[in-house]
């Protein structure tokens, strides 16, 4: 942490313009997105430029850490406040939060069991008793979607987690060491990028068997190259920075420079890509489960629900359309959040 702060002032003290930034942030001019985000950055790094550097040298360690955290917190709040004034962003965050919460505890939102059949209630349209209607076996579709969230979130998080870890590792190693290591890794990534993601995912799932974990692995292999490329590009930029050279000159070991200086300063864009790829992973997981590679019945991911409903598209359209709309909204929300964060980073 102190290193990070220290590096922040080494990085570009001249770029920071705290007073102007704060003013823009306080005035909260909505259209001036650039100003607002600049204010965010300024708020995050600005104060640390003065006393932050000393924390390593002089101040008692615990105090310095506490002060840094406080400054960070204020910084984060200052970054988020203008974002919270955007209704689209707030709605997207709320919806994603609802999906995650309902996926974790579906019973809070629906009293129906997702697998309890009720032949007399089959294919009922949306109503107050069944919010999203019932399927061909009389099961409550809303409850099935919420329970499907649990599975889809698990598979998606798994996929993105694997992809981020693997992508960061590949990207940092390739970018930092360069040379033949870089060439070798990037050609492998080129090959992976050349194969259509869905095709490769299908092949992997067929080889590994059906289920959540195979799907997560298959999707992560598909999205890892994107992370590797982005990370490498950032690392290439960061490793030329003066503070990295300073660290090296100061006698820091390769691994220390890589882990303490390069990696933490490269993952900003990767974080945005993570949110963005969450959307892509949701779509891929849904596509795989649509094709029947998901968890065995009666459990149903979102894709399975859409797939099951398509036989009734003419006569009971809600069976496919409502789960489809749900997936669409989730992906749209995730993309919107990622975009907003990306703007905020600039």
């Amino acid at each position, binding site marked *: 942490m102190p290193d990070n702060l220290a590096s922040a002032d080494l990085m570009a003290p001249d770029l920071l313009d705290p007073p102007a930034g704060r003013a823009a942030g306080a005035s909260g001019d909505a259209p001036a997105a650039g100003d607002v985000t600049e204010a965010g950055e300024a708020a995050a790094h600005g104060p640390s430029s003065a006393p932050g550097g000393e924390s390593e040298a002089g101040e008692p360690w615990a105090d310095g850490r506490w002060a840094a955290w406080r400054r960070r917190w204020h910084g984060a709040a200052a970054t988020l406040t203008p974002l919270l004034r955007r209704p689209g962003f707030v709605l997207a965050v709320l919806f994603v939060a609802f999906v995650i919460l309902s996926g974790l505890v579906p019973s809070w939102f629906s009293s129906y069991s997702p697998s309890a059949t009720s032949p007399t209630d089959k294919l009922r349209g949306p109503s107050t008793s069944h919010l999203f209607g019932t399927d061909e076996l009389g099961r409550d579709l809303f409850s099935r979607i919420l329970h499907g969230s649990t599975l889809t979130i698990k598979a998606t998080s798994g996929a993105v987690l694997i992809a981020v870890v693997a992508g960061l590792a590949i990207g940092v190693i390739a970018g930092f060491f360069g040379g033949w290591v870089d060439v070798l890794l990037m050609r492998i990534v080129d090959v992976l990028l050349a194969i259509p993601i869905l095709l490769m995912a299908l092949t992997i799932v067929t080889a590994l068997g059906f289920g959540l974990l195979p799907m997560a692995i298959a999707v992560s292999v598909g999205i890892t190259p994107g992370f590797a490329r982005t990370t490498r590009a950032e690392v290439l930029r960061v490793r030329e920075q003066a503070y990295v050279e300073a660290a090296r000159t100061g006698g820091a070991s390769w691994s220390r420079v890589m882990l303490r200086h390069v990696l933490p300063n490269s993952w900003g864009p990767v974080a945005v890509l993570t949110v963005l790829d969450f959307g892509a992973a949701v779509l891929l997981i849904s596509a795989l489960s649509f094709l*029947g590679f998901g968890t065995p019945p009666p459990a149903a991911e979102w894709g399975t629900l859409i797939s099951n409903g398509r036989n009734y598209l003419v006569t009971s359209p809600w069976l496919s359309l409502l789960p489809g709309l749900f997936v669409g909204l989730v992906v749209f929300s995730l993309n919107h959040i990622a975009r907003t964060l990306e703007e905020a980073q600039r």
Partner: protein
Amino acid sequence: MSTSTRHRSRSLGGRRRLATAAVAAMTAAILAACGSGSGGGAAAGDSADGSSAGKPVPGGRLKIAFWNDLQACIDPNQVYWIESRSLDRNIADSLTDQDPKTGKIVPWLATSWTVNADATEYTFKLRDGVTFSDGTKLDANAVKTAYDGTVALGPRSTLGVTYLAGYKATTVVDPSTVKVEFSTPNAAFLQATSTTTLAVLSPATYKETPEARCAGKIVGSGAFTLDSYSAAKSAKLTRRAGYAWPSSLVANKGEAYLAGIDVSYIAEDSVRVGSLTNGTLDIAWPRQPISSADQDVIKASGGRIETRALPGISTNLYPNVTGDRPLGDLAVRRALYKALDLPSYTKTIFWDGYPVAKSPLTSTTPYVADESAKLAHDPAGAAKLLDGAGWTLGSDGYRHKDGRKLTLVALTQAGTPGDQLVQDQLKKVGIDYQIKVVTASQFTPTAAKGDYDLVPGYLTRADPSVLGSLLNAAGSTFYTAKFSQDAATAAKVSDLFGKGLSTVNAEARGGVYQQLQDYLIDNGLVFPIADRVQVIGLTKKVHGFAWTSESFLRANDLWLSK
């Protein structure tokens, strides 16, 4: 042998009022004549005559779509895939035909026949003037070549193996008389001679390799010839000029009315139904019954629905009783019958009025018995049986014994709504029914290892002996036969199947097969789930539709109005 796999708009363009009225009158007449599952060719012939559309109009190509063609074979001697057999019925003729209404065997290429008392010798008198489409004459030699050729296929002919069980030789008595001999009695053989599997192809066909025959190098004597066949993509059939030897069940004694038949394969139900209602297709022919909702859509577009139960083995589940598996206990198997609610299953998955499974055989199979009393839903009885067997209800809602959960693994290629309904029905008595979905390529190896508790299976043949293909361990190496019975039970079952095949007298045969079906249910060797009804959608242009006894297409009387 294929295990059940599952897969699934609107226009009326009347230009003038007069035309619309005429069309409406015509449709009404046709619906009245052959709307409710008419069976035989004669009936269909009547409907064509009785319709106000008048005399059959020759010409036009019938466009028909099936759902898939996974076996990818068109050779009638080899194929078990029922859609291909439907086409084969119109390409190749057999010695006899079977009346769909009575199950009686009637003359076709053979004008008469005699059977000896112990069902080991069959002598057929052949019809005169029949030629294959390559010009060869049908004679006793051709029949011998065909039957020997089918036997030579061995296990490649999945159905032929059982149809010709105990086959010794075919001898040519004279050019128009042929004698088929068996070393063991085969009373089901006469019905077998009416099937597509024992269709007689031209002698030249048997010089081709089995693979080439599968790919379409076949020449028959049927009312249509096969122009081209591309597995799972398309097939084209053309009318055979000069055809004049249909079976006695066909009204049209001459050439077919249709100029040809164009076959396509559409896997997606909604696309197939949509293609029918917008007029791209004349007949939509899926494997799984068209849903009642889709039937309404077809009717609303002016089309109609034809239904007939496929004869043979119902959609059943077969247990694995070997090793330490829960179904090794007869009490658990008996509890399973009581736990299943078949009427509710039928109503939910299909519709009200769809026949409920009453036996391991479907409702149109000759000698089918009514076992419905033993298959009645009785959850309390099931609970009692399971308690007695030591499986007690745990706090998780499932039953346990010696720390083991009562889990039944059901192997399937697609977790259909039907599987999930069974799962929920069994859950209500505390049985954990796990649906294990595997790919088509993994299915057979997994099942052959016996890595399941329950496995589905059905087969089409209009004779009760068909059950032997899946359950007679003495005659079949199929996994359903191997794992569903212990040695003592297997001996008893084989004995009953043997009796059935050696009894020629119809009434006595009926008695044996009643006994067999009772035994299978009493001992929990097979769990009937649903009857199998072939449901097809037709446009109002199609007239003279007829089913064969095996619920295949018979196109001799079919014609299309303009």
